[in-house]
């Protein structure tokens, strides 16, 4: 195998570690409580039948073992801190350390959500300032920070549309969704009680305007559009699209997952979007944390404002801030308290560190990086659509597939080259898609290493397809049997079920 060509990574000794339950033994402790300063009680007396005697298989280990357990496990992960993470649609950008520091400041980290407003002005000011920034960034009129993630924001946004349309006399039945859309879009429409009608894209990878015009009618609440779409293409006819919807009384929902292509360069509010969500854990750099937490603020136009979830933040005459619960037309709450406040803190810190000039430069670099990769790889991989790319580029494995090498194989082989794979086989409109989003956080050196790796793999796919099909070869575990995992699921450890220990 051509490991000599691999410049970016090598192999190094790495610690094994079993499950924490396999380390447990009675009498080990990692805690000690302060002495009880009130009279001790007898739980049995106080709780009677409700008392619990035993905590089953909960672990008993020491602090030293906990540090090693999680430290060792952490070394099995790839992360932005280790290298490029070009997952299309995920915007894996640098997570600044200062954001983590400020989010842990005592007054913010230890604030109880129900503490009186007048001693919560710091937190309220942070939320208000972030909201104001996001409104100018999106060009919208009103916003809620309550949704916990993008999909949660989608639901909130669609409910705003539904509430508005109901107030107009008819909530309508269907939502139009392009075939290129992310899975959460149709899933969200369904949750909100709408049927999903599919909208084809045209040869340029954009919404087919004539199809839209013919499909749009009074049964349709609106369109859920990602812009730039999941092919990384900006919907050039966006204004036209909005008009068609508006003419028939429908609304335009924009999935803002790809705002990293637009911040500071254009504003959805200016090109006809009625309501949209943002992913603070994408565009605004709050860490993904291995799958979450996120935050999915929803911004909307004036006509939808009165339906926003409660509470909203309002500025009082005396300049102090407070929560407004008195919103009779609100769609209601989508989450307890006020959303993932800790993510609001981080997103605002990101905006302040960047300023307007930094945000613009960030967008420009993100688009520059994607187009550089596109240019460098278009001779090696098939480009299904040749419309201009914004922040990400989507190739297809067409050429490699002839040798039986699929996008998933190329992805696994990238691991040997020291990279995290791109997004595999999404969007669905592209057979065998390679969806690559570098973000602005990659240096030219890192991009060139990635390009070299992709070119080398293209050669390997031609000369030695087996090598690629069996990748990765450099990881502590080889390809895992996902079918077996799904066939009879083992979803928790059990004492008897001690399995092949490492």
């Amino acid at each position, binding site marked *: 195998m051509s490991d000599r060509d691999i410049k970016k990574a090598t192999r190094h000794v790495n610690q094994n570690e079993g499950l924490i339950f396999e380390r447990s033994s009675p009498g080990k402790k990692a805690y000690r409580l302060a002495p009880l300063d009130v009279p001790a009680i007898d739980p049995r007396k106080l709780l009677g039948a409700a008392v619990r005697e035993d*905590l089953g298989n909960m672990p008993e280990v020491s602090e030293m073992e906990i540090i090693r357990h*999680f430290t060792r496990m952490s070394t099995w992960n790839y992360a932005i801190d280790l290298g490029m993470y070009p*997952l299309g649609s995920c915007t894996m950008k640098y997570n600044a350390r200062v954001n983590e520091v400020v989010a842990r400041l005592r007054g*913010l980290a230890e604030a109880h959500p129900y503490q009186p407003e007048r001693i919560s002005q710091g937190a309220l000011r942070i939320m208000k300032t972030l909201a104001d920034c996001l409104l100018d960034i999106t060009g919208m009129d009103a916003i809620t920070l309550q949704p916990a993630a993008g999909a949660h924001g989608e639901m909130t946004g669609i409910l705003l549309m539904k509430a508005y349309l109901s107030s107009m006399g008819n909530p309508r039945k269907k939502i139009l969704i392009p075939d290129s859309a992310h899975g959460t879009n149709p899933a969200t429409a369904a949750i909100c009680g709408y049927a999903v009608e599919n909208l084809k894209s045209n040869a340029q990878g954009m919404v087919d305007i004539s199809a839209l015009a013919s499909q749009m009618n009074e049964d349709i609440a609106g369109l859920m559009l990602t812009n730039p779409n999941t092919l990384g293409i900006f919907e050039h006819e966006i204004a036209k699209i909005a008009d068609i919807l508006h003419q028939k009384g429908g609304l335009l929902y924009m999935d803002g997952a790809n705002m990293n292509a637009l911040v500071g360069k254009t504003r959805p509010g200016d090109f006809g979007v009625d309501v949209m969500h943002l992913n603070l854990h994408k565009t605004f750099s709050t860490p*993904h944390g291995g799958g979450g937490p996120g935050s999915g603020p929803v911004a909307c136009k004036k006509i939808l404002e009165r339906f926003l979830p409660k509470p909203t933040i309002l500025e009082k005459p005396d300049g102090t801030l407070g929560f407004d619960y008195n919103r009779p037309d609100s769609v209601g*709450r989508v989450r307890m308290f006020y959303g*993932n406040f800790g993510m609001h803190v981080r997103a605002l810190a990101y905006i302040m560190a960047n300023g307007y000039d930094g945000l613009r430069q960030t967008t420009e670099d993100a688009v520059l990086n994607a187009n550089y990769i596109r240019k460098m790889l278009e001779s090696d991989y098939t480009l299904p659509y040749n419309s201009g790319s914004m922040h990400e580029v989507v190739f297809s494995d067409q050429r490699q597939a002839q040798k039986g090498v699929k996008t998933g194989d190329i992805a696994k082989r990238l691991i040997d080259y020291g990279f*995290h794979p791109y997004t595999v086989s999404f969007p669905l409109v592209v057979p065998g898609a390679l969806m690559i989003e570098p973000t602005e956080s990659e240096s030219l050196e*890192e991009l060139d290493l990635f390009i070299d790796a992709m070119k080398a793999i293209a050669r390997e796919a031609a000369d030695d397809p087996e090598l690629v099909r069996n990748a990765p070869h450099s990881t502590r575990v080889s390809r895992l049997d996902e079918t077996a995992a*799904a066939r009879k699921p083992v979803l928790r450890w059990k004492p008897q079920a001690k399995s092949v220990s490492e």
Partner: protein
Amino acid sequence: MRYLPKSPSDREQMLREIGCKSIDELFEPIPEQYRLYRDLKVPRQMAESEVVDYFRERSETNAAGYAVFLGAGAYHHYRPVVIDSLISRGEFFTAYTPYQPEIAQGTLQAIFEFQTMVCELTGMEVANASMYDGSTGAAEALMMACRVTGRKSAVAARTVHPEYREVIHTYVQHQGLPVAECGYLENGRVDMADLEKKITDDTACVLIQSPNFFGTIEDVAAVADLAHSKGALLAVSIAEALSLGIVRPPTEADIVSMESQSFGVPLGFGGPYAGVLATKEKFVRQMPGRLVGETHDRNGKRGFVLTLATREQHIRREKATSNICTNQALIATMATIYMTVYGREGLKELAGQNLAKAAYAAGEFAKKGKVLFPGAPRFNEFVVQTQEDPHDINNRLLEKRIIGGFTLSKFYPELGNASLWCCTEMNTKGEIDTAAKAVGR
């Protein structure tokens, strides 16, 4: 900008390679009239020191260092420092969802351990990788129950957290899924007679919370019998997870929705927290959210992967069990570390201290005010009724840098001047005595 790893000459070189004269060429797909040529109205670029100063000032105007007697769905417990030192490792907090298991075993194994511990504590057979929080988790539990039973309505106890019930209302109305509410008794528990009336043969499930919003521990077994006798499922919501250290788990439930915040997650003005759903094995394919499962690699070596994805939106789209994608993985990892630190003995001992603190406090408060809902056991919260408007009491305490209980009039007007007090291991006897005195004036 200091985060951007490019020099001006890097940018020029790249533009040359691409064949563009200026960066703006790359933005031509955006129609000219929508291009933004002014600066955004956001703060100017700040030095790191300025950013830190800004948030430190906000932090200092945000009740830093107050004693707090608030619970009501968010609990103040001590957070062992190892939690932050471990989750601050970039390998955990700057990783994405573990879609590539060969380079994500760290996250996957941690979540597998989370799922296992949640099962152990709740008495359920399977648990998922997390939900947004306890409120959305409860809503998803009801929707799940409908999928399982094919029935189209539910009953929720009024003693479920009021904001949970608001969230449930927002979710389920659009599914054509009416939710009836049932009242509570003098002892603070579910009114079984009322519940029996409310359950119909279209009732998919009964939702209760235990310990409930008043801190009272419900008779889960009795409610389960009633629900099951009518062919409905029982969903139990747990807002104060630490109670499971000393309170019998709701093993009779069919679905448990737990908020994990008590397990080492900062109060953080309400979030991020982490919900989780647990259930019986037979219902797993109707469960929303990600699941980590054990498997093996080519050489038979144990490994973990995301599994049963056919329930999820990225595969099933509009037919998915839920639209959830990003969850609360890092918070679940925090909870996993917390549960590991305290473990089998510590959770019990710690829960015991909470029980003792609340019992002592209730005793002290009873001398001056009326402690409601006698006759049923509580964990670390209790309701006190006073002559005086609780707001006045709390204002007095604020001057002593003590944040008093949660005023109930907004959600339970029928209780008059009542508020909900919480005592954890963090509340000293001194604070409790001061607060108790204030109540009695």
